[in-house]
């Protein structure tokens, strides 16, 4: 395959083939490029392989425990990952709902309602916010939001009907919780989602919008019947990218989820997630526990790879849709 690609270097290949000598394309330069590619390929194979290899003892001896076991007894085991898997799903899905609901409205407002001059400033601001390191969101959640939630919001939530089934026992709560982690994650992935969905919405062809306006459609009808359907697939792609960021988030969740390895359906009780559990437990881990944490890493890797697969497929479909338009 590598031999093939030497002569396949696009323009060089073509030109050289036309002149009928393939030897000139194999200069030192191409070998340098290929060497870099081999290093890159080796790094990525090593990336997957090395984590897999270190998790092997766990997959050989306790494959079921890592996925379905519910307790984490350090340092002897058993090491069950169910609490982390459930926690990851709970926090990232709630965060996604928050981010998509608010983010979609925000992107539409930025593209259609904000004056042109402000639009670029707001767009730049959103992209800068998307670049704010997650630890800063975590710090804010931990030192500002958690005490405020504990003092003001939690008592109010606990006064709801069915609060105990939804939020859990108030005496167990002390600030950090799954709901808080989900909210901070939602705030964190909001700029990411808006940055992408704004671009997707902004490239909807102006002709389509003007055509439907000229037929007497109201603003909302244009958005609902023209803009959203045209950019639908790109918006799904943005959703998946935001979801990928939420599921992989480590330190922010480690600070604010509470770090309790228990399968938790009460949202105001402390919980944990896969990535944050790896971060908090790794420091004191030995032997089998390291292997179990690597196995959790493999699960996270599978989750992230499948999310990126789906989002890439969606983005390529969006390109086709726009090409047709």
């Amino acid at each position, binding site marked *: 395959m590598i031999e*093939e*690609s030497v002569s*396949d*270097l*696009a*323009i*060089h290949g073509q030109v050289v083939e036309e002149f009928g000598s393939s030897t000139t*394309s194999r*200069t030192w*330069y191409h070998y340098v*490029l290929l*060497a*870099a*590619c081999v*290093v*890159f*390929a080796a790094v990525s194979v090593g*990336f997957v392989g*090395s*984590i897999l290899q*270190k998790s092997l003892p766990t997959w050989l001896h306790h494959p079921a425990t890592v996925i379905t076991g519910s307790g984490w007894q350090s340092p002897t085991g058993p090491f069950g990952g169910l609490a982390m898997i459930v926690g990851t799903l709970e926090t990232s899905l709630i965060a996604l709902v928050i981010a998509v609901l*608010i983010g979609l*409205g*925000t992107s539409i*407002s*930025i593209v259609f309602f904000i004056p042109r001059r402000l639009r670029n400033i707001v767009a730049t601001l959103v*992209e800068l*916010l998307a*670049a704010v*390191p*997650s*630890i*800063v969101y975590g*710090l*804010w959640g931990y*030192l500002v939001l958690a005490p405020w939630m504990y003092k003001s919001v939690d008592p109010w939530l606990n006064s709801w009907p069915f609060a105990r089934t939804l939020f859990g026992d108030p005496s167990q709560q002390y600030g950090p919780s799954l709901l808080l982690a989900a909210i901070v994650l939602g705030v964190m992935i*909001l*700029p990411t989602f808006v940055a992408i969905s704004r671009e997707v919405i902004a490239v909807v062809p102006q002709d389509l919008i003007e055509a439907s306006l000229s037929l007497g459609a*109201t*603003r*909302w009808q244009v*958005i609902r019947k023209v803009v959203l359907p045209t950019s639908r697939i790109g918006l799904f792609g943005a959703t998946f*990218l935001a979801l*990928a960021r939420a599921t*992989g*988030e480590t*330190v922010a969740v*480690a*600070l604010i989820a509470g770090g309790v390895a228990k399968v938790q359906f009460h949202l105001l009780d402390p919980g944990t997630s896969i*990535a944050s559990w*790896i*971060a908090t437990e790794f420091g004191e881990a030995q032997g089998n526990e390291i292997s179990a944490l690597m196995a959790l*890493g493999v699960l996270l890797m599978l989750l*992230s*790879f499948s*999310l*990126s*697969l789906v*989002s*890439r497929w969606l983005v390529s479909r969006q390109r086709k849709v726009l090409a047709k338009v």
Partner: protein
Amino acid sequence: MNDLTQLDEPIEIGQSMREEIRRVSHAARARRLLISRIMTSLCALALAIAAVPLVLLLWQLIQRGAPQLTGAFFTKVPATPTLIAPNATGGLSNAIIGSIALNVYAAVMAIPIGVLVGVFLAESTSKFAGALRIIAQTMAGAPSILMGLFAFSFVLQDLHVGFSAIAGSFALAVLMLPVIVLSTEIAVLNVPNTLREAGLALGAKPHKVSLRIVLPSALTGIVTGSILAISRAIGETAPVLLVIGGGYLNSWQPLNPVSALPLSIYENAKSEWPSQRAQVWGAALLLVAFVFVLSLTARIWASRKQRVSN
């Protein structure tokens, strides 16, 4: 209406029918407008709701962080507060130096390889290049804690290097690589084909064209991508958390344990000393300032380039 032969219908019926139609359409239009108003104001509300936490975050960051950025913050190593001196937190010079060292080493490792791979992806149509592109796209979305696990298992366990700056830079380099690869590919693809053809027509060898014509034209895009990769890496806690050891001394040595700004934020946020928790805001503000300056530089650079090429 139902029978076209009734052309001689009385004018009054036509009149009333016309009014009826007008009335119905008016009502429908009013309804559509109302729905439109409600939904658009919901969108505006979403914008307002989105702005509140983000503005609050930035405001609190500046308000609490700015007073912490004193001279000692930049020049002293951390100290542990005691009951006698509860405010003796020292500075975070070790973390600032550590962050810079980690990212410089990582950039030195990642940029050359990333740029070369990106050039290859842009100029090759082989299956190997296609596979590398998919790998880069997948790696770009991988959770950063996995880079930390990789560095731990490869550098620490397999190569037997201790907790060190180089292990952290390795993790950060793996994080930067796909970003640099993908942005370089786009930058090279954006170079107009006419430039390449002109070079080839003048008899330049393909590698001369690539080195002397394509790469200089794509340079701005490549630099922008590399800066963005660094600005992403500098804020990452998870990859370095497991492997750099959190050293308390100022050290540029690759083999010494170092600290990093995000790491010291993570550790000190949980401190029981209010003075240390307050100091963390200074570190966070400095980190955000780093990231903003880097990404704004990249943006301005990119837009200037656009103006030149237009």
